[in-house]
């Protein structure tokens, strides 16, 4: 692919309460619509994409690839995002670039945080476990220290070192907007920088990543 053929990239982010859609037009330009609210993704994501294309004076057929946030994250959220992406991809014969959600968030944070900062992303997975990953900001990009994994809630404090910045929804405080998932523009940017080998037309094989091994525990 030459540079020109890579844009526009349409990106979808639904791994948490932030419902976000973006269209990346070049390395310097993007449009984005965000809606931070519980339980609205299935209703709002399609109109958001439609408005976004209208605003950017584009048609879906003009899009070169769909970048989709694959998780880890909300069970229902990820299914909505991937289902809509697959529908659009099949209908307009577009390739999909699956994007690891936490890496996209790390990329987004790396553009604003000082060099060398260590960041933890910790999101609730279920009652007992959280999704956990650790990164280090390195030359305006990120270095993976701990790949996204499932850990017990009580382990988090022991995994945290002095100076680590914690992002995510795992603490129980309700106020404020949590930075627990990336904006769709960061999903698009990750796809543009790292996603070239992941481009696929085999949409049927894509599944949300819940990091579950589904191992059945032995009854005591």
């Amino acid at each position: 692919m030459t540079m020109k053929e890579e844009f526009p990239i349409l990106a979808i982010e639904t791994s948490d309460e932030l419902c976000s859609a973006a269209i990346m037009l070049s390395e310097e330009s993007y449009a984005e619509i965000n809606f931070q609210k519980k339980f609205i993704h299935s209703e709002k994501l399609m109109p958001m994409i439609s408005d976004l294309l209208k605003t950017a004076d584009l048609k879906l057929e003009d899009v070169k690839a769909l970048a989709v946030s694959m998780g880890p994250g909300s069970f229902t959220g990820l299914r909505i995002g991937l289902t809509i992406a697959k529908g659009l991809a099949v209908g307009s014969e577009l390739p999909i670039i699956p994007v690891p959600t936490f890496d996209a968030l790390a990329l987004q944070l790396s553009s604003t945080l000082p060099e060398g900062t260590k960041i933890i992303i910790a999101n609730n997975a279920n009652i007992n476990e959280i999704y956990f990953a650790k990164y280090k900001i390195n030359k305006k990009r990120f270095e993976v220290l701990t790949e996204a994994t499932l850990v017990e809630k009580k382990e988090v404090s022991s995994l945290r070192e002095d100076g680590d910045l914690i992002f995510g929804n795992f603490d129980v405080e309700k106020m404020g907007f949590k930075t627990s998932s990336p904006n769709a523009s960061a999903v698009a940017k990750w796809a543009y920088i790292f996603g070239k080998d992941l481009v696929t037309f085999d949409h049927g094989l894509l599944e949300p990543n819940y990091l579950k091994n589904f191992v059945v525990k032995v009854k005591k």
Partner: protein
Amino acid sequence: MKLPFSAIVNSEEETTRIATTFASLLKATDIIALTGDLGTGKTFFVKSVLKLFGIEDVTSPTFSIVNTYSGDVVINHFDFYRIKKVVELYDIGFEEYLCNSSAITFIEWAEMFEEILPINIYRINITHLENSKREISISIK
């Protein structure tokens, strides 16, 4: 109602009375695991509790696996009876139902997948004694 609680009831009216008292303990995020043989009245007990939350049209979730009702709180009413493997529960997002901070979750036949249940949840066991006589035990475990 002091827990653990246990009583013998002789009629639906007496069951309803216990359900009513139990309902007053409940708040969002609570989980209630119900155990007891077929026909002991697990669904009847849940129905009686849900009346207190203004929900009238409660049906058995045996076929649907889960019924969800939205009122002041969201109610998830599960029945594990037809589930064959625990993976099926992960596959329908069971854990996300439990994570909903505005929901109360009832689970019939909970003993079939003990491994997926959190600790410190309400346990209700109903035992059929004779005719219309039943023993209802409620505890937290």
